[in-house]
């Protein structure tokens, strides 16, 4: 079994579990996108509240957040916890959403757009989360600031290492911190724009979860906030290195690797994974069935296909064939998923048109209505028994069991919404069968997004084209069951067959009123048990969110150890000294470029050597920055050393001398446990030790 197949099986099992325990309409796995939006709004609203009380200056930040958490725990404290836990829930939801789309093969073909536009959202989520942790300015924030800086410094885009902003307390300034505040506010706004782009190719996108589910999830998060509030760790102090840190493993799980294995490795692996994800829709390209085709002589521009298309693939354009209509349907093959929802909506898609070959206003080239009608007649000819049933099955949900007594026949359609209501009328009034059942994907989990809703609403008479009121609804049923819900499917079919057997011969429904067809069968569980199940399962899902938000703590520094950071930004001497140009040299220059002194810009590299108690700790040569190698050389290296008394010897060469060093200094130092000892260098001062 392929990886994707195995993943699909896992999702089938989880979805079945959720559907059974949570009941109809509550399955979070089939509304992950909507839940993502819900968490985004929780984070946004709680964030706006926190910002009111937040001190954006680095010196007052920690106290202001402490005040929010402790002095008004009942409002700011809860909202802070909600802010954090909903952010984690958003990340988890987005990742699971992506995995589920992958497992369902909804990233290839014309799905590529939503897939590709979803990837930047993941990046935005991380940017928001990481800058959020930064703003608290506790020891975790300190770790996040230093490690993120080191991670970004591996990119060759910054003139001076960002990490130098967080060398020690003395180098700390408000400016970089204000930038973080700005990013933390701007990133979600940009993210909202991308969220809109992400769903822009989906008609009637679901951006709100079911009301009951949303309210209960919010309740569970509030409960988590009360039981296990999100609190700051010790205040940041850049002169020390926090030995153990309570890490949020969801957002910062890769950070220990940055510390242990270097930022470059993590950055390149992340980029490779992102690139792979971006290419997935074409690995290999999907063999997409051909797009729906409009037959202009049969289209009057009524717009029903346009209204029902789940993927916004149909537009109403100005009439092009000279007929006196204003509009015509136009299919965008780049968006069409060939689900056939448009065929199901077309008023001319009716099998009562008796011509052997006719075309509806819009058709699927690979399953025209005439072919479907032929298939229906062939299927009906095989049916025997007193409760003959025709099942329209999309093949993407639970398999419909074959009945040995020959009383059921299955007709395969790409999506149940492809079947126009007149087909039901045709089957029943032509006595091709005694009942019609639509066997689709699990409820709200339609592979084509809304096929179950469209079908149910057309049968219920709440959506045009509706099944005519004259057709008794007792002979029409729907069964929404995912691949893991075979027993539900079998039960649905058996129950429907059983009820068909008890019905008197079919007669026309009196009047045109619609029987109130219920969308879903009544809940089989008693209410208290159902609610207990819901709360237990949702709480179980929230448990890891609360737990791994700060546990297990990560030890970044062994006890009795300190960190030595060698970091500076120094421009070496130029390779060639400035000298006066001769008259002849000046004459060669263009008149507007003439100058008296010539100064070639290239500089020497900077070589550094550091020894600890006579043992070589570091030796390196750093090229000058810039295309012309005329910028400063930058160094940022960290070393762990045992606490205690040491002799440090540091040497630096910034000229072209063949041997020896231009600067050298030896100091005896008493390293305290968890101390952050910084060796800096400035040409005018020489080495500084803090």
């Amino acid at each position, binding site marked *: 079994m392929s990886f994707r197949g195995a993943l699909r099986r896992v999702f089938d099992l989880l979805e079945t579990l959720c559907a059974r325990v949570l009941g109809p309409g509550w399955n979070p796995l089939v509304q992950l996108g909507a839940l993502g939006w819900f968490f985004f709004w929780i984070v946004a609203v709680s964030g706006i509240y926190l910002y009111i009380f937040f001190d954006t200056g680095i010196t007052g930040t920690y106290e202001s957040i402490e005040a929010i958490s402790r002095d008004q725990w009942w409002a700011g404290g809860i909202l802070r916890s909600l802010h954090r836990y909903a952010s984690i829930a958003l990340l988890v939801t987005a990742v699971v959403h992506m995995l589920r789309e992958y497992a369902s093969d909804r990233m290839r073909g014309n799905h590529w757009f939503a897939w590709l536009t979803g990837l930047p959202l993941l990046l935005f989520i991380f940017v928001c989360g990481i800058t959020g942790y930064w703003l608290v300015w506790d020891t975790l924030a300190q770790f996040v600031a230093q490690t993120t800086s080191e991670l970004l410094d591996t990119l060759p885009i910054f003139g001076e290492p960002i990490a130098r902003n967080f060398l020690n307390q003395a180098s700390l300034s408000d400016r970089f911190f204000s930038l973080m505040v700005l990013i933390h506010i701007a990133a979600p706004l940009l993210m909202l724009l991308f969220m809109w782009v992400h769903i822009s190719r989906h008609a009637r996108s679901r951006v709100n979860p079911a009301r009951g589910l949303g309210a209960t999830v919010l309740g569970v998060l509030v409960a988590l906030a009360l039981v296990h509030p999100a609190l700051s760790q010790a205040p940041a102090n850049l002169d020390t290195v926090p030995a153990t840190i309570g890490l949020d493993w969801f957002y910062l799980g890769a950070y220990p690797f940055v510390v242990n294995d270097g930022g470059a490795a993590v950055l390149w692996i992340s980029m490779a994974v992102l690139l792979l994800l971006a290419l997935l829709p074409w690995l290999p390209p999907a063999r997409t069935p051909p797009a729906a085709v409009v037959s202009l002589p*049969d289209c*009057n*521009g*009524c*717009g*029903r296909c346009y209204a029902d298309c789940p993927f916004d693939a149909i537009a109403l354009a100005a009439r092009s064939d000279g*007929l*006196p*209509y*204003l509009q015509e349907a136009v299919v965008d093959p780049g968006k069409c998923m060939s689900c056939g929802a448009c065929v199901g909506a*077309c*008023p*001319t898609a*009716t099998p*009562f*048109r*008796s*011509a052997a070959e006719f075309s509806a*206003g819009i058709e699927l080239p690979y399953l025209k209505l005439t072919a479907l009608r032929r298939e229906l007649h062939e299927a009906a000819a095989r049916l025997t028994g007193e409760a003959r049933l025709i099942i329209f099955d999309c093949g993407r949900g639970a398999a419909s069991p074959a009945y040995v007594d020959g009383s059921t026949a299955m007709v395969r359609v790409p999506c149940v919404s492809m079947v126009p209501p*007149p087909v039901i*009328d045709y089957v029943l*009034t*032509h006595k091709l069968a005694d009942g019609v059942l639509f066997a689709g994907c699990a409820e709200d989990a339609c592979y084509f997004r809304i096929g179950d809703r469209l079908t149910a609403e057309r049968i219920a008479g709440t959506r*045009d*084209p509706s099944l*005519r*009121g*004259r057709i008794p609804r007792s002979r029409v049923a729907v069964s929404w069951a995912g691949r893991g819900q075979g027993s539900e499917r079998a039960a649905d079919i058996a129950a429907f067959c059983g009820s068909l057997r008890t019905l008197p011969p079919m007669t*026309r429904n009196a009047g*045109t009123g619609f029987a109130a067809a219920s969308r879903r069968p009544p809940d089989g569980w008693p209410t208290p048990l159902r609610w207990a199940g819901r709360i237990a399962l949702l709480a179980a899902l929230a448990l890891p969110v609360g737990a791994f938000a700060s546990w297990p703590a990560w030890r970044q520094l062994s006890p009795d150890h300190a960190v030595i950071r060698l970091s500076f930004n120094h421009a070496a001497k130029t390779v060639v000294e400035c000298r006066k140009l001769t008259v002849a040299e000046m004459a060669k220059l263009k008149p507007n470029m003439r100058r008296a002194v010539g100064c070639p810009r290239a500089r020497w590299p900077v070589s550094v050597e550091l020894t600890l108690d006579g043992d070589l700790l570091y030796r390196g040569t750093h090229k000058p920055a810039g295309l012309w190698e005329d910028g400063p050389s930058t160094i940022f290296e960290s070393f762990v050393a045992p606490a205690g008394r040491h002799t440090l010897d540091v040497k630096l060469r910034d000229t072209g001398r063949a041997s020896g060093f231009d600067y050298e200094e030896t100091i005896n130092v008493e390293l305290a446990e968890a101390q952050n000892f910084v060796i800096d260098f400035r040409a005018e001062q020489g080495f500084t030790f803090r």
Partner: protein
Amino acid sequence: MTTNLIEWRDEFSVGLPEVDHEHREMIAMINTLQLESAGGAEIASVLAALGEIHARISAHFALEEKNMTSLGYEGYPEHKADHESLLDDLRDLMDEVATSRHFDPAVLGARLSAWFVGHFSTLDARFHRRMGAQR
């Protein structure tokens, strides 16, 4: 000489080209059906013609309903109900012919023409006058 069951009359015109076009098309279909059935057409071809009329009228109503809802036409519920009942009548008629395998051309023609002319001259005229005024 055979005469058409319904002749297009200027008063049928609602002034909207697409609506007039479909009304004319339907009248032509009904006339063809009437002529063929009077000439002893097979049941199958009568059913085929009724099926085609059913499809075209469904599309016509769908277009009208789109126009009504986009204009916020206050008579929409009444008009829509009439569409539904006309389509039910037509389906009843189709079932009667299919089940009984028999039809009386005169009765068939009379039902269809009464049906059309009645709907055109009352509800349709009211809506299309309103729509023409707004276009």
